């Protein structure tokens, strides 16, 4: 029987309480203590919500990460050292009104000693960035999940003089070291964000075939060398897109990488068109809830996805024969307010409940 789970696919938003506390601290109107307090409340509430919704996979929502690349920009060997993180150039996440600081490469990138579980600290609590002491012990080695940038995404967003292919390869080695250390503390599910693979169709950029081949091999290597389940997520583009000059669609490329699971944005990929595929017992992360959009009515009511419709779409995906069907938002929910983001998770939770009921 197909397993049904839910998961987050990126950084989760701060609550309004935390944001107000940050404002007060930033402008010298209050100390850091209220920020810490609010942040810890945020974190525990998010974990509690995922447990209540019975997702089976639980993350810290990468809360406390400046952006997906920040710990790598700060701690990886081969990146330019800096006095303050604000020395790093700011760049826009394509197709959004959000930004990140670019990792600045100036040598061969490497991770001779893992930093995600050791040196990298959460800037608010001052604890290990993974903040895994907050995750539920009963899901340790079973359901602890974390989102990391994939090798293609990393080279796409980094700056400096470097060979993209070598960067993809070297970053795969960095990820292997880091994932092993994450496994050691209890993480068993790794979601590698490789969104540019699909969004480049919409940014009118053409990925170089050699970089796609290198990515495929890098993902294979990571999966081969790590015990955790390695999932690759894509968003904001059609996974059936075949980049000009490349012999296959992005979905084929990922299937051939032998990863454990694939994440697809079903607001950009046609569900019917994908049904010709078989996932061959891989897991499917189904982005069925729009992480960036919703509406209000004239009376101010929030209009979200209908859980029944989400469940119906999920049912169509059973034809792909995934080993596990994981319901998810299309991407990070950081681009909508926390209250709405949590409501979106509840939509997923309700859909999941309905599907599980039908399975039984």
């Amino acid at each position, binding site marked *: 029987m197909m397993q049904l789970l839910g998961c987050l696919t990126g950084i989760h938003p*701060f609550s*309004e309480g935390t944001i107000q506390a940050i404002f007060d601290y930033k402008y010298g109107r209050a100390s850091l203590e209220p920020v810490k307090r609010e942040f810890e409340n945020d974190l525990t509430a998010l974990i509690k919500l995922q447990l209540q919704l019975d997702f089976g996979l639980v993350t810290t929502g990468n809360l406390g990460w400046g952006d997906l690349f920040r710990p790598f920009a700060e701690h990886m060997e081969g990146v330019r050292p800096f006095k303050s993180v604000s020395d790093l150039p700011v760049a826009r996440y394509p197709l959004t009104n*959000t930004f990140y600081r670019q990792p600045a490469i100036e040598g061969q990138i490497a991770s001779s000693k893992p930093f995600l579980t050791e040196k990298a600290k959460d800037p608010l609590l001052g604890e290990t960035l993974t903040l895994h002491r907050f995750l539920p012990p009963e899901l340790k080695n079973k359901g602890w999940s974390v989102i990391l940038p994939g090798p293609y995404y990393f080279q796409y967003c980094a700056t400096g003089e470097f060979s993209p292919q070598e960067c993809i390869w070297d970053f795969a080695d960095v990820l292997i070291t880091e994932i092993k250390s994450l496994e050691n503390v209890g993480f068993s599910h790794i979601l590698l964000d490789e969104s540019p693979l699909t969004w480049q169709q919409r940014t009118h950029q053409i990925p170089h075939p050699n970089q796609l081949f290198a990515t495929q091999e890098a993902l294979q290597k990571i999966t081969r060398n790590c015990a955790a389940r390695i999932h690759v997520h894509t968003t904001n583009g059609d996974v059936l897109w075949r980049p000009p000059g490349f012999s296959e669609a992005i979905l084929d490329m990922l299937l051939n990488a032998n990863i454990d699971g694939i994440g697809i944005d079903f607001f950009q990929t046609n569900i019917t068109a994908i049904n010709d595929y078989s996932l061959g017992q891989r897991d499917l992360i189904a982005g069925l809830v729009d992480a960036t959009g919703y*509406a*209000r009515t004239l009376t101010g009511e929030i209009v979200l996805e209908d859980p029944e419709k989400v469940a119906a779409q999920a049912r169509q995906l059973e034809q792909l024969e995934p080993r596990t069907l994981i319901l998810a938002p299309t991407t990070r929910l950081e681009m909508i307010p926390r209250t709405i983001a949590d409501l979106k998770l509840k939509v997923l939770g309700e859909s999941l409940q309905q599907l599980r009921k039908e399975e039984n």
Partner: protein
Amino acid sequence: MTMAAFDRLFPTHEVGSMRKLNATILALQRKPIARVHLDEIQYWWDHLGLNNPGPDEFIHLLTHPPSSRVEIPEWETKILRGRLLFNIRLLESTGLDFVYTGEAFRREMYEHFAKDILGIHLEDHHIRSFDDRFYRPGVRIAGRKAERRQPISIEEFEYAKQVARKPLRLCLTGPYTLYDWTIKEQGREEFFFELIKNVYVPEVLDAIRTGAQFISLDEPANTTKPYERELYVEGYKEFFQTIGSTARENNVKLGFHTCYSDNYEQLFEDLPEIPWDFGSLEVANRDLKGLGTTDTTRPAFKETLDMMIEAYNSGCRIKLTLGVLEVHADKQFAQDDIRAGRAENELRSVIRDRVVYMGEYLYNQLGEDGPYYLMIGPDCGLRPVSDFKVLQMMLHAMVDGATDARNILTDRYGLQEFKQM
């Protein structure tokens, strides 16, 4: 006076919002104001010689909210006006050719416009744009056309006009950015045209009637979605068709600002399509930080100038600011270097080199008119600079760097200080 400044070789201006005085924020939030924040008011009011209101009067205003609800709006307006007066005098003190309100009346660039647009529901909660920067998003109301509830920036501009001693720029958050940053269902392009027709045309016409001569539309969202490129161009063509003749009759200059884009190629390709008078872009952020006036020491400027020349070869004739001052430039220096004036000297020299490089490049490529197509400003608004003394120092360094470059190039090529293009 405005037009003389516009015709100057390398006219200087700032770009956007400034940090708000903490005491004014706390007062408006009805929170207690610590001594340190009142001391900041005292210092700057003394330092800039502000006397209407004077420091004691303004501090009294901040610390004594009226007990009657009816008097609150007037009290709040006085606080905002005090903040605006400070911003303008601070900018004037740096020697800029054009000044701005620093968005004194605006809490945040998106929110300030969205709150006065029927058809957008402004959320109470914020979302993060990056690091510790957040904004309140708006959500499109299904089934409601976008319309202006009331004039949005006119009150602020009218007061600024009374206060400013230098030519004044008016900045509006642009319609495409409003469209793009509003959370909405997919495929709602009519919303963009509603914003132009029902919000921006009346707002700009009101601004012209009020005496604005130098109006810029802040469009940081431009180029973020290449698949909306035609929408942007079509929308602005419609905008200029509607207000173009009024702008020309009143000798009003209209411009744009875009920053942190990874697709300037598209922006420059589209530049000849829209009849802008001026524009500004972030460039220093992507440039090397050291001295130098060669292609290898100024790679980001070379890349941008090449695109600019291409646009000019396609008929585009606008004045462009390629940002010469990073908004985080102060973070490159130790506090001691800032205090001792070494940071200012270093910044001034780097900016001088950036301007000299650009001026010479355009002189060589476009002839003696080339350098006059340049304006000088920071990459973006200097709101991230929390210390006003540092902000003053940075803008001062920029103005002096531009002056040094102007002197170098007028000597070298016999250029005039003013030239009407």
